[in-house]
């Protein structure tokens, strides 16, 4: 990585003023030498600013400054992701199947889950439904997969995300 370095030659505005002051002093010296030949004294009226602050110019990492098109290659910051689980095959029908309702008891599940079950029971009268109250509420726990299999569930409806 490019490191910050001092720019050896570049001058800040204040350093330019300092340089100008040195120039003015040289002119004054020339005037003094001239005075040896010509005794008329020369008065310098210009006020010279004496710099008291040194500005450090640093070069920071940044644009390389090349002309023409630039291509940047950067990583996708979301990184890698591992798929370890696959979705179960879909059912051909819900008729005659066991449908399990799962939930975390949040977001009005005591109302939404029974209502969904009620609607599906009317649509699929030969299906069996196991209500959410029969299952643990830790639906993020991987153990839940084994629990629903043991219960004989053919399909699962999970809610409610919040």
């Amino acid at each position, binding site marked *: *990585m490019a*490191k*910050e370095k001092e720019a050896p030659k570049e001058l800040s505005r204040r350093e330019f003023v300092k340089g100008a002051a040195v120039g003015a002093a040289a002119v004054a010296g020339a005037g003094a030498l001239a005075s040896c030949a010509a005794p008329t004294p020369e008065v310098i009226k210009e006020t010279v600013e004496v710099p008291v602050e040194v500005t450090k110019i640093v070069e920071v*990492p940044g*644009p*390389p*400054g*090349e*002309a*023409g*098109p*630039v*291509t*940047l*290659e*950067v*990583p*996708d*910051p*979301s*990184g*890698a*992701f*591992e*798929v*370890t*689980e*696959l*979705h179960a095959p*879909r*059912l*051909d*029908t*819900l008729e005659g199947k066991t*449908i399990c309702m799962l939930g975390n008891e949040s*977001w*009005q599940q005591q*109302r*939404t889950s029974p*209502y*969904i079950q009620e*609607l*599906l029971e009317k*649509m699929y009268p030969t299906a069996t439904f196991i209500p959410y109250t029969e299952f643990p509420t830790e639906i*993020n726990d*991987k153990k839940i997969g084994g629990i629903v299999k043991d219960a004989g569930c053919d*399909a699962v*409806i999970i809610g*409610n*995300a*919040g």
Partner: protein
Amino acid sequence: MKVTHSGLGFAPELAFVNFPVTLFVAESDLTPLKERIEEFTYGLTKWEPEVTETAILTPPKVTVEGKDYEEAVANMNRLFLRNQWSDGVPLLPATKERVDWILTGTDLPRDKEIARVGPRGGIATVESIAVPLAMTGGRPEYLPVLIAIVEGLGDPEFKTASWQTTSRGTFLVAIVNGPIGKQIRLSKTFGCLGPDSQRPAGVRIGRAVRLILQDMGGATPGSGTMSCYGPNRTTNVVISEDEENLPAGWEPLNTEYGYARGTNSVLLNVSCLAVNMWRRGNYIGETLEEEQDESFDVVAWYMRIPPKSYPVEGGGRGKGSPVGIYLINSLVAEQMASVGWTKESIRQTLWERTHTPLAEYLTYGREVRKLKYDNPGIDLATLPDPMPMYEKPENLLIAIAGGRHPSQNFWLGEGRAVCPTAEIQLPAIWDQLIAEAEEDLGPIPIDP
């Protein structure tokens, strides 16, 4: 929902029926369920996933062009905004050169997995952790701290997926102990929770944490995270404890978690509250001893809000949970210590002074409802009077940080039950990195 599903190891695709949040509030109209019931049937019988094999999915690198460097960087930032990879503040390009430079901050192999960040479950490797740090203007010497933080994020007991997805206003708090804090210029005194040009490490590490939580963890506002307000998430809180100015007899925070004094380590917690506490006395005749004692009345008042579920056996959100981190600046800590206060006595006093009269507690309908739900048949008359607001004094964490001024303390409240800690591992070239930092940034600033 797709993001949370990914955290369980599935591809980010799911058969789901999405409803507006208004369906899920008290006394809502359930008609939309009836109108869309066929979609439930479709999800169980017709929907098909696109990913049909287990695999590690690694995204390709992104190429961005521009007529010059400036335009290419601008285009990269536009792309990151569109892909929801940005935090909204301009980012630097994580070029190979910049990432390789950041990676000089560790001796760990770049492909070593550090954590899987929930809820999405993105794989955080040493290299993928260095990427956001490169984007936020980080430096190699920051990397060991960031790796330790990510290690903590992966602690299953910390439940990062849970506090990331919640509607609460959670943000990460990382307290660093050991000499590394001063070496990398972490803030610990005046303005330590905010920006500081002389001490940029905390905001740059904290911003990289945010990108990790969002990009690898999936916490995009309104989908991967439902935090209604999302406070303090741009930079989170990454500070150092002011170990140099601890009062005599007070030990650093990390010694309470088994580390020897002087060990480089980080402690994580999550807060929802960031409250300045004007704790100073009014200077109308009180002694130093009275001022310190009375300041705890003020602090306890802040800490009682909002009430927590009473921690009884078998239930209660407050059970075993640290209620938060109480930040005391080192000058105030010296004053307290000079009149006999210790961390232990402060904890005990604040635990007692945050107790609430039972009659007042029983007016908190939400809390009483939860208490009854968790403890069927409970006799409210048997509850203690006054009621403790958290289980035990040790639930309160105390860290010494903040500007040395007698007036203020700070409260990072509503913490989590688990505080992961991790030792910070330095590379063999650590001294060289610190020397280069001094060359680049100037001498380590002297704290006022």
